[in-house]
């Protein structure tokens, strides 16, 4: 065996070190480009400050919705170590539920006007409750049917493939049932789309829409509520315990099945609310509405460190802002804003796989 000759030679395949080099190169290149653009924007501004504020405004609103969806990914990942691929579609179902609720209230006659405009606050609250509960119920059943039987599967990829299956199933069923054409949300007059407060500033004007303000406030309220829920309640504590150590949590008397179901319900509630917000703010939607926000919210969850709830909130906000500021900042077509989001995903995974706020864990497995 001639192979023996290089038995004692130090091998050249030092993969780990290579990766670190790669990280440095990519990081320095990306950093340098961003720095170049910053200088470029200062020296030769293409847009006035008013535009930047406008982009920031859009970014915050979208970011709030991303955060809500991203929390769902993070919670489920913590409990099951699974990317809930159908999460975007669960949000889509919530969006549809809100749409039907508003349509129903629009037809419901109360005196002169209809229910929607007679009791707008009640209508909005009911729409959120219905949207959130439809999403919660579908999340519950998706887990029960598609994920639970696979928890101890010996095929490692099984839960993930099953998740893709669930996602496609929900999406295509919605397409067949409700049609592929885009639908428009019927907002109450109180929250009419596109109207709001115009703020004159220097050479331009920012429109702060009512729906935008409402969505942002709603998102922040939900996030705060969730944070206290996870920190203070018994269920929240058991969710945290399960994400720390599944086996020990079970030994402490935590029912894994129940905690998993409840996690899916909570993430469904957040996703459903995000879906209704999406409809109220953007108006147009169809069965495909959950796909892009789903992937982007996952990006946000990774950005904040997957499994980390405050990280997911911050990640969603950051992603929303970067995505809406990015095209103008980098001087590229607004068509390409999705490319920015996915590039961020790839860059984060190269540079800091544990996320911006995640603890860098050694990926050494106990043997």
């Amino acid at each position: 065996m001639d192979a023996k000759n290089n038995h004692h030679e130090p091998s050249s395949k030092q993969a780990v070190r290579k990766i670190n080099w790669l990280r440095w190169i990519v990081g320095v290149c990306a950093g340098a480009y961003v720095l170049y653009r910053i200088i470029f924007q200062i020296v030769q501004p293409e847009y006035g400050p008013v535009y930047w504020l406008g982009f920031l405004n859009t970014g915050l609103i979208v970011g709030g919705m991303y955060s809500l969806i991203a929390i769902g990914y993070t919670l489920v990942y913590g409990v099951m170590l699974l990317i809930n691929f159908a999460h975007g579609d669960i949000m889509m179902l919530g969006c549809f539920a809100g749409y039907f609720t508003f349509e129903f209230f629009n037809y419901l006659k109360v005196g002169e006007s209809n229910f929607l405009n007679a009791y707008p606050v009640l209508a909005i609250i009911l729409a959120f409750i219905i949207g959130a509960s439809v999403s919660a119920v579908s999340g519950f059943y998706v887990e029960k049917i598609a994920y639970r039987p696979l928890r101890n599967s010996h095929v490692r990829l099984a839960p993930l493939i099953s998740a893709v299956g669930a996602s496609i199933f929900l999406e295509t069923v919605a397409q067949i049932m409700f049609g592929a054409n885009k639908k428009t949300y019927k907002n109450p007059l109180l929250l009419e789309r596109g109207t709001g407060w115009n703020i004159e500033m220097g050479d331009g004007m920012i429109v702060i829409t009512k729906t935008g303000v409402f969505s942002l406030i709603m998102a922040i309220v939900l996030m705060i509520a969730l944070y206290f829920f996870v920190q203070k309640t018994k269920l929240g504590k058991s969710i945290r315990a399960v994400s720390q150590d599944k086996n020990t949590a079970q030994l402490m008397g935590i029912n894994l099945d129940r905690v998993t179901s409840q996690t899916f319900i909570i993430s469904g509630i957040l996703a459903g609310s995000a879906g209704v917000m999406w409809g109220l703010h953007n108006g147009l939607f169809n069965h495909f509405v959950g796909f892009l926000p789903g992937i982007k919210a996952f990006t946000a969850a990774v950005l904040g460190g997957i499994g980390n709830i405050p990280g997911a909130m911050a990640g969603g906000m950051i992603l929303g802002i970067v995505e809406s500021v990015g095209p103008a900042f980098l001087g590229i077509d607004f068509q390409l804003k999705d490319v920015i989001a996915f590039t961020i995903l790839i860059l984060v995974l190269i540079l800091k796989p544990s996320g911006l706020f995640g603890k860098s864990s050694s990926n050494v497995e106990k043997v």
Partner: protein
Amino acid sequence: MKTILTKSSKFGVVAGIILIFSEMINLSSTLAEILEKLFTGGIATKDVIIPFYMGLVTGLIVFFTTFAFLKKQKSDRKNSFLHGLAAAIIISLVSGSLISVLNIILGSYLEKGKDVRVYLEALSPDVIRAFLFQTDVRHAVMNYFLSTFLGSMTALILFWLSQKTNQPAKTIRGLARLKEKIQVGRIFERYPAVKTISILLVIIAILTLPLIVNAYTISVLGIVLIYAIMGLGLNLIVGLSGQLVFGYVAFFALGAYTFGLLTAPKPFGIEMNFWLALLISLVVAGIGGFLIGLPIMNLRGDYLAIVTLGFAEIVRILINSNLMADYTGGPQGIKNIGQPIQPSIFERYFGKPLEDNVWFLYLIIFVFLLILYAAFRLQYSRTGRSWEAMREDETVAQACGVTTSSYKVLAIVIGAAIAGAAGALYASRNTYTGPSEYAFMVSVNALAVVVVGGMGSIPGTLLGAFIIKGLPELLRDLENYRMVVFGALLIVMMIIRPEGIWPVKRRKLSVAPESIEVLKEDLKP
């Protein structure tokens, strides 16, 4: 008795939900139409569905639910006929009333002249009329109860009969015994000549096939084979090395666009030779795989899934964007992509040149066989074994000396290159390539090909390609439900048969051992 009551009403609700669901997505009327065609021998279909078949579909759904219930009950304890009867009646009543409620609502809308298609697109007035058995609401409700009742009763009687005579069990046992008797594999082992001859026969059959089938079948076969090629590539990544790649379509698109740019008259006008262009697109897709594989080679599998999905979206958006429109043609795509020139040999032997599509099918078969050979070699070699070890237990594989990071990248590169070849063939076959052809669904189809056939199994992948791309072409009526079925199929396969329809078989490798002295010599460090 009480448990039977609650359990059977639960099953009744399930049956009712299935009925409502298939009515909402218009599946049951489509099924009824297919049954009608089947029984009437495909005679010109009228616009209206005969009520009998509608009832038949409803009855069948209830039939299967009741049968499942009775079977489950049987394993619990010995049940009497009366218990079964009560359960069957309850199931039929519950499911019947559920479906009736839906139809009363829909029927009243129809009578008021409202079109529910604004909200529920699948339910056009004709479809609702079909669901109402072409009569009014009152009769329809009666019909529903009748069909659910008949369905559950048939299930009960059949179940009772089968239990009394034990016929199905005998049949199944007989079939199993027959399968044991035949054992094709064992014959192959005993007589290697038989194996060679049968492989030759299969190859001859494949080679003569394009000459005898019609143009439509040729086009279906072409797409099936292209998907089989993609499946072989994805099988290396997902099935062998155990990494989930969702954005496989990105490499397919890379191959197709490279090929298009190299052979189309516009925008560059290179019009390169077919084979050279095929090779270059294979290499370009491989490089794409390398670039995407390199940064993520020591990440968990599910990150890879999302990253490749993001990469596929980037590729799709870029080829669609104005930024690249000068090269990729934007939404218009690239037209007039070159096709290979037919060598004159065929003309000499057959008297006339082959038809273009037949010739191209031969070409696809040729490339397919090449890739099949390569995939086969790779799987049963050191490389393939290392991939499989990595899939089984990455930590231990690395501790055994498998450089996991490079093997991961290697799998992605080879898989991507194969997808590039498939993309080039696809672009050349259509003489066109545009951004709309590279949606996420293509990745899902490729994944379904691998999963349904059996992860890691090459014959399984071929079978998967026929099931995923071939069957829907044959069952044109169910076209709309294809993706629904795929989604459900992915879940169901993972739950009941994760190893796929045609699971991989371990090869026999052992040889007679030598003496310990040889081993001593061998193991000298």
